[in-house]
């Protein structure tokens, strides 16, 4: 713990923790996405999957226990990731008190790399909204606890909601496009022979996640899933 704290004390260490939590997110996002795709198999499979999430780990874990453990880990990861992001953001913000007259001319940075922070804020806002939407139902007009499939389908029949999700997934896609590559760099996953695969990997991850996630709301809005 002391060592992790000492890691956290330095800017590079903070970034490493961001990358580690980032990996946790990517794994989570993939699992989540595969879960979502069950929507294409109809209500039974989907609701069964939602139930499975609560029973997973049995008999070592009781109903919903492991899911809560995951939630705690994820929450913890979000806190670390966001806290580090905001602290480093501040550090960089004060590091150049006088800006360049007409800005720096971008040469190698990408739109994705330059929007990591605001993109992250969008994601954070989205996560909150998403939880209020489908988990607690606070932001869902016709929420029925336990009826995951129905909540989903009804939820995405509203076009503004679909657009909000599309924007958020766009942000996620950009965040991952830079984040995956950047995370590998931050974790020092670097080898002359394999470096050229880092960028394609990021494209792949970002692309899969984007398509995987938007397919469900789009399919619902388009009436493919009913």
């Amino acid at each position: 713990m002391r060592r992790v704290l000492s890691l956290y004390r330095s800017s590079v260490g903070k970034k490493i923790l961001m990358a580690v939590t980032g990996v946790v997110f990517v794994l989570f996002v993939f699992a989540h996405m595969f879960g979502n795709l069950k929507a294409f198999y109809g209500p039974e499979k989907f609701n069964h999957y939602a139930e499975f999430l609560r029973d997973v780990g049995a008999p070592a874990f009781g109903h919903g226990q492991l899911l809560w453990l995951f939630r705690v880990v994820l929450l913890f990861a979000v806190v670390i990731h966001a806290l580090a992001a905001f602290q480093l953001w501040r550090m960089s913000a004060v590091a150049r008190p006088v800006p360049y007259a007409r800005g720096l001319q971008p040469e190698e940075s990408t739109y994705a790399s330059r929007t990591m922070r605001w993109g992250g804020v969008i994601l954070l806002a989205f996560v909150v909204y998403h939880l209020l939407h489908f988990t607690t139902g606070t932001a869902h007009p016709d929420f029925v606890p336990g009826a995951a499939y129905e909540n989903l389908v009804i939820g995405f029949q509203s076009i503004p909601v679909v657009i909000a999700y599309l924007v958020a997934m766009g942000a996620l896609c950009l965040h991952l496009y830079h984040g995956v590559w950047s995370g590998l760099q931050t974790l020092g996953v670097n080898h002359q022979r394999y470096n050229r695969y880092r960028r394609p990997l990021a494209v792949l991850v970002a692309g899969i996640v984007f398509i995987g996630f938007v397919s469900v709301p789009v399919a619902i809005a388009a009436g493919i899933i009913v």
Partner: protein
Amino acid sequence: MNLVLHVWRQASPTVKGGFVRYEAKDISDHASFLEMLDIVNEQLTENGEEPIAFEHDCREGICGSCGLVINGVPHGPQHGAATCQLHMRHYKDGDQIWIEPWRAKAFPVVKDLVVDRGALDRIIQVGGYISARTGAVPDANATLIRKEHAELAMDAASCIGCGACVAACPNASAMLFVAAKVSHLGLLPQGQPERRDRVLNLVAQMDSEGFGSCTNHAECEASCPKQISIDFIARLNRDLFVASLAQTPERMVAGAG
């Protein structure tokens, strides 16, 4: 060719600076960018005005003294070259050129286009070296070094300490500079005993100097006159990770952390 320059003038670190417009007339294609400024300065002097202060020494791209942000690009449009190696054939008649100093809190302006890069020296002073007392060393060929490693160390060691990486970074981070040093020494067998302390201390000092935090934009690599690769940043990250988890450093410098 004739050019219009907008040059940052600032009388001292504490006063506010601003852009002043100058005209550079009859500039030859073959003149270097700094020679173009020399010409402007000669005229200013003759008119009884103070010439534009800018840093330079070797004028062949190796000492790391020079450094101007030209139209938003540190060291100007030519890749892999310092400002002093830039020639006017990259410009055409009538061009408008904005000239600014490196901008970073850690590099306060001394005057006009001259900044204080002492922070980079202080980073080296906390451990960016191999302690080899004069005379107390083995024969040069006693340790064999793989050519590949020696070459890679040389790539990192080619850093001229100009600070363009900081100037180019949207975060004003000095990661490429620190990474180059950590990698140069960390890649060599002679550098192993101090490797962990070195990376911890250098990063701590870098943080305390007020540089920003790297987000892997790779702008540093693009403007580095020696084209030092950001792969070295990955190496630095890995070294720091290992060093932080592996041990509590024995020789943390005062105030670091």
